[in-house]
């Protein structure tokens, strides 16, 4: 629904790049959103970025900003501290997220009730430094994210390697857990944390739910390790050259990278060439 009285002032507001302190509009009809502040009737920008206008709401989306969570986001986090009945999780955001003991799956199936003893052996579930695959369920009063892992695909991550990318490059999509044709599982956290690991058939996980918090990696053969490393380097080069990171772009990059040795993928020329290749295939596809 576009606002009918499209005055000249509103048309040139959108998609302009503004910097802190610059005037966006002094038309009192507008409401101010994120990235702006108002003094008397004028709306100023408080960040450098592109102006976005949705009907009456004017906001500025900074191009570079730390990840700020949305409810329902699928993310990867690292446990930083074990506190009473909760874990603090680094989620690459402004504050650590919180994973409550009551919002995780307990080993031994769904029907197991939370007991006092669980509170005492918290570290058998998650310990400091563990990586967790979780979903944002709500906010706390001060803006910290509250996470949960109450579905079988979520939980502790193992058998793989960790990659950090710009959060803006990971678009929100239906599912963030993919098994690539080359036999590698990847988890694309919306907060820019990505996990690349050996493929574990889903059926094996449900069998013995005792193992969902085990810390032991399974056996990983050499060529599985090489594929994991190749995928990780592909993600690095996509990130460095600002290509959107999705399962399709990673697959394209993987296929294009097969002619090079894994370690060469990080050299500048090869990275640029591969990224260009991926971009053209993505444009053809869309």
């Amino acid at each position: 629904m576009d606002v009918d009285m499209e005055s000249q002032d509103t048309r040139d507001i959108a998609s302009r790049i503004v910097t802190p302190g610059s005037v966006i509009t002094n038309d009192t009809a507008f409401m101010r959103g994120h990235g702006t502040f108002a003094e008397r009737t004028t709306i100023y920008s408080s960040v450098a970025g592109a102006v976005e206008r949705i009907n009456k709401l004017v906001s500025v989306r900074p191009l570079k900003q730390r990840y700020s969570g949305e409810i329902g986001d699928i993310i990867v986090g690292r446990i930083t501290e074990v506190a009473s009945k909760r874990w603090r999780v680094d989620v690459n955001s402004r504050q650590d997220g919180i994973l409550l003991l009551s919002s995780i799956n307990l080993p031994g199936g769904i029907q197991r009730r939370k007991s006092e003893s669980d509170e005492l052996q918290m570290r058998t579930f998650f310990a400091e430094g563990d990586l967790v695959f979780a979903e944002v369920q709500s906010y706390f009063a001060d803006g910290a994210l509250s996470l949960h892992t109450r579905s079988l695909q979520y939980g502790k991550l193992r058998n793989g390697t960790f990659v950090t990318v710009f959060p803006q490059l990971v678009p929100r999509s239906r599912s963030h857990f993919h098994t690539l044709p080359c036999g590698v599982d990847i988890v694309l956290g919306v907060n820019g944390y990505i996990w690349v690991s050996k493929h574990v058939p889903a059926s094996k996980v449900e069998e013995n739910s005792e193992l969902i918090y085990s810390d032991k990696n399974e056996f990983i053969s050499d060529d599985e390790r090489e594929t994991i490393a190749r995928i990780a380097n592909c993600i690095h080069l996509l990130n460095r050259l600002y290509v959107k990171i999705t399962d399709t772009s990673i697959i394209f990059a993987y296929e294009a990278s097969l002619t090079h040795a894994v370690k060469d993928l990080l050299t500048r020329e090869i990275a640029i060439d591969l990224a260009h290749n991926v971009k053209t295939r993505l444009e053809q596809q869309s």
Partner: protein
Amino acid sequence: MSRQELISPEGLRVDGRRANELRRISCRASVLNSADGSAYYEQGNTKVLVAVYGPREPRNRSLAQQDHATINVEFNIAPFSTSERRKRSKGDKRLLEISSFVKQTFEGAIQTAIYPRSQIDIYIHLLQHDGGTLETCINAATLALVDAGISMMDYVCACTAGFIDETPILDLNFVEESSIEVPNLTVAIMPRNGNIALLQMESKLHSSKLEDVMELAVEGCKHIHRKLDQAVLVAAKDLADKLSN
């Protein structure tokens, strides 16, 4: 000590500039990829590198404030920054003073209330020192903070000014700054309303001359504001192009 001729009869200063000329400024945002925001800033021969991390979880949570972010500034001078190598100790009062000035200046400029219980770290490293240390640190830190996408009321632009032989001079270099006769005034303003965020002055200046020297410094700040703005726009467009195609 022979009284060094700071302004030649023709009105030229030791480095060939006129009285109201700024040193050449070149600056770039997003120079480090591990930091949330970063900037490299050169003003004449003074070169400084700033990295900004945050807002993020404070290292020691007892300092976290309930309703706003805390700002932590660490400033150090590279031992190779001046001609004779000098390693400054951690408790050097001059370093602590500059970091506390930068911290207080940005406490007024950053909208800390938006990021409760978090911490913003500003790490400043002076690579080469040719006068105007505080001024370049503030300008570089502004650029890095804007690059990090942290909400600010406005840029903070700083500039120095002095007074030799009855004429106000703009942007002092090391020779002018360290000579004892020349008063050395540093002012940092918020360009939008011209208010003064920081004002520091050393050695002597007659009270009647203060107004002219400050006006010249404020002019310098406005010019620096344009330079910083350009650097931000260049970095923003460059990033926007990369992300879009």
